[in-house]
């Protein structure tokens, strides 16, 4: 309850900061639309060469791209701004002030900053998914939508867990501005249906960085092609990841030595 209130306060502060700079506000809106465009173009270019790639038609792949865009919005809007703030805190040694506050530090740093524009991306992503389903003449059942939603929540949790793991690395190695860049470039592979990847890539993207779970499984669920066992395994994997991230965070915060005097 207390944490819900803190969450509300932090979110309101972010919104107010965003509205404060009007020019930035419009730039932000424009960028949000640009990102969606950016996500969609490679898909259209590739599928203009073939009607089907690795068993996915354009419309089906559009569902994967929609999920990718949506999660990208979650990542850019909710996960990454905070991640950046923590790295900055560690570099400057101001994390002390966060650690001194009478609330869980992980919770505080995770909710410190939100980029509000990413709601636009998220909305456009839903639109893209609707377009794909409409072209396929497919109305998913309530159950399928339910599974897709549960998997989406799991995917968001996974993203968050990965971000926490990345932040934890910043306690050991100070100069890590480009960790965010790394995170982005790895996550970018999630825009493609997982069956495109083979061999080492498939193992990497299923178990090490579970991108398949994040975008391909929800799309498969909507298409009615995901079997129950896989869904359950995916959920268990997500829970494990979140727990592991929490553990690593606890351990690495012990390594924090304030850099300032």
């Amino acid at each position: 309850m207390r944490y819900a209130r803190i969450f509300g306060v932090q979110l309101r502060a972010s919104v107010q900061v965003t509205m404060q700079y009007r020019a930035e506000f419009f730039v932000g809106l424009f960028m949000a639309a640009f990102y969606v465009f950016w996500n969609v173009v490679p898909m259209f270019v590739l599928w203009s060469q073939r009607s089907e790639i690795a068993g996915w038609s354009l419309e089906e792949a559009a569902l994967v791209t929609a999920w990718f865009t949506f999660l990208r919005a979650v990542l850019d809007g909710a996960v990454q701004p905070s991640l950046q703030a923590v790295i900055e805190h560690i570099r400057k040694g101001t994390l002390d002030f966060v650690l001194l506050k009478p609330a869980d530090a992980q919770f505080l740093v995770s909710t410190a900053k939100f980029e509000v524009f990413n709601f636009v991306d998220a909305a456009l992503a839903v639109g893209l998914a609707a377009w794909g389903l409409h072209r396929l003449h497919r109305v998913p059942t309530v159950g399928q939508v339910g599974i897709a939603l549960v998997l989406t929540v799991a995917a968001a949790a996974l993203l968050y867990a990965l971000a926490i793991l990345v932040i934890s690395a910043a306690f050991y190695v100070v100069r890590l501005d480009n960790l965010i860049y790394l995170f982005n470039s790895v996550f970018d592979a999630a825009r493609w249906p997982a069956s495109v990847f083979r061999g080492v890539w498939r193992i990497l993207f299923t178990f090490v960085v579970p991108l398949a779970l994040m975008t391909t499984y929800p799309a498969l669920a909507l298409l009615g092609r995901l079997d129950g066992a896989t869904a359950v395994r995916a959920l268990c994997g997500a829970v494990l990841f979140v727990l592991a991230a929490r553990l690593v965070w606890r351990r690495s915060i012990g390594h924090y030595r304030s850099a300032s005097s």
Partner: protein
Amino acid sequence: MSATTPATSASATPASATPASATRRLLRAYPTLLRVGLSSAVAYRAEFLVWMLATTMPLVMLAVMSAMAREAPVGHFDQKGFVAYYLVTLIVRQMTGAWVAWEMVQEIKEGTLGLRLLRPIHPLASYSAESLAALPMRAIIALPITIVVLVLSSGKDLTQDPLNVLIFVVALAGAWLLNFAVSAIIGTLGLYLESSLQVWELWMGCFMLLSGYLIPLSLFPSWLERVARLLPFAYLQAFPVETLTGLRDRHAALAGLGAQLAWAAAAWLVLAILWKRGVKRFAAYGG
């Protein structure tokens, strides 16, 4: 001299020295700047490792494209053709990337640019030295990849023309010049705008789509390909890559080199003007 440096004005910049003596001083100092930059690149090895992993995007695209090429060639690319294209793409990106915008914007925001302005070396020169000094470390990544390309393709997917290889090498330098100038322009915009890093993101977004970094330009719909080839992005990736992988003949390669150097010159001109005007607006506070 007082400990605080309020409002460093343009008159305090080394640009006010006579051009000849300033150039001589710069030439004398540059090797040292490079050495300093190199040792800092070596010192932050973790960062280096992160860079290595962060540039896997062409490899991901290679996996995607290979999935398509397994069934039948895509355009004029078969699987081996894609291997050559994307590995050369990786090399070009490694050897020509410049990310100075981040650092410039950071220093403008924190006011530490003032310290650079006080030094007797032009700030753009010191930024460029830092950027260039990272190249040997990046070459360590690029070299094994080059060997892999040579072995895998047995030279078949690379150009057989020695002149084209030479043009490729010059094009690498040209691409770095253009990359650095654009990055520095956007960094300099930080003196004018709050949101210059968003301009950088926009540039990077367009770069990835329109430079042939993600998808070879020849696979685009023809109108989009024509548009892309008119823009500067194509000269950062597509032009050097196509030259080395034998997709351009001598004539087209030379024409591309001319266009690339013209873009680079234009970018440096814009950079010089923007910097000169922008630095007058700069005011650093702090001690």
